[in-house]
């Protein structure tokens, strides 16, 4: 029965990959298009004032959280599948699944937290 449940997680993996692709394209556009279009790639995009400008709008925070969730889920599910192939067995399965889930959720919590702090710092 657990194989039937597994396919739900796997479909989520595909969807997270597609959603992550889309949001990553936007994320990369925000950081690289200004340099490309102005003809002057520079570190202005990465300066603290620019970072605060970006952090001000709630849509930035929302898009960061979606991007983070999608890519972390996609990444850790992929890593879990890879590790389960290399280390089969019931105990390994439990350890790998829980390890991936917990580390993924911890990184997600940290990323969401810093996004919220940055938004508040910027005055959003």
């Amino acid at each position, binding site marked *: 029965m657990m194989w039937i449940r597994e396919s739900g997680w796997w479909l989520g993996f*595909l969807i997270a990959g597609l959603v992550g692709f889309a949001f990553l394209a936007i994320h990369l556009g925000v950081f690289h298009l200004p*340099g490309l279009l102005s003809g002057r*790639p520079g570190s202005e995009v990465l300066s603290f004032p620019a970072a605060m400008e970006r952090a001000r709008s709630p849509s930035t925070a929302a898009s960061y959280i979606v991007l983070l969730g999608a*890519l972390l889920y996609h990444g850790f599910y*992929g890593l879990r599948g*890879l590790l389960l192939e290399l280390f089969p067995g*019931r105990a390994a399965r439990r350890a790998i699944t829980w390890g991936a889930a917990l580390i993924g959720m911890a990184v997600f919590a940290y990323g969401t937290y810093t996004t919220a702090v*940055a938004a508040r710092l910027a005055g959003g």
Partner: protein
Amino acid sequence: MKKRKNDLGLWGWLGGGRWGLERYLYSAQRLSGVLLLLYLVTHVIVSGFRVNEPLWTEIMGALDRPWVHVLEFLLLVVVAFHGFNGLRLVLAELGLSLGRMRRPVYPYRTSLVRQRPLTLALMLMAVAFIVIISIEFFALPE
């Protein structure tokens, strides 16, 4: 659990079974995925430093080096490959590029007739992305 006879483990990534192009693309997809996951975790931690202005300015200053830009460029190359190859895999896994079911009468018409042009198209898109990115990284004056 007893190791099965056909369990090649990591060596299987180098081409276990049919040595088609897709096998190598898939192995590269897995490898690039692991590398990107490592980068992602690092990136989330480092960009979390934007909540502390002096720390942020110091780190961004330290990372404003040519060799860092080269590494960032390589990262985007890996992202492009993983992303576009991933699109190919999603299409393949959901059966959208397999073609109509037909009788296996010689000469056999396999799904590769549709899949290979799709693979080429997606990889060309990845190359186009990389060309645009390399313009920003290397061709524009600082």
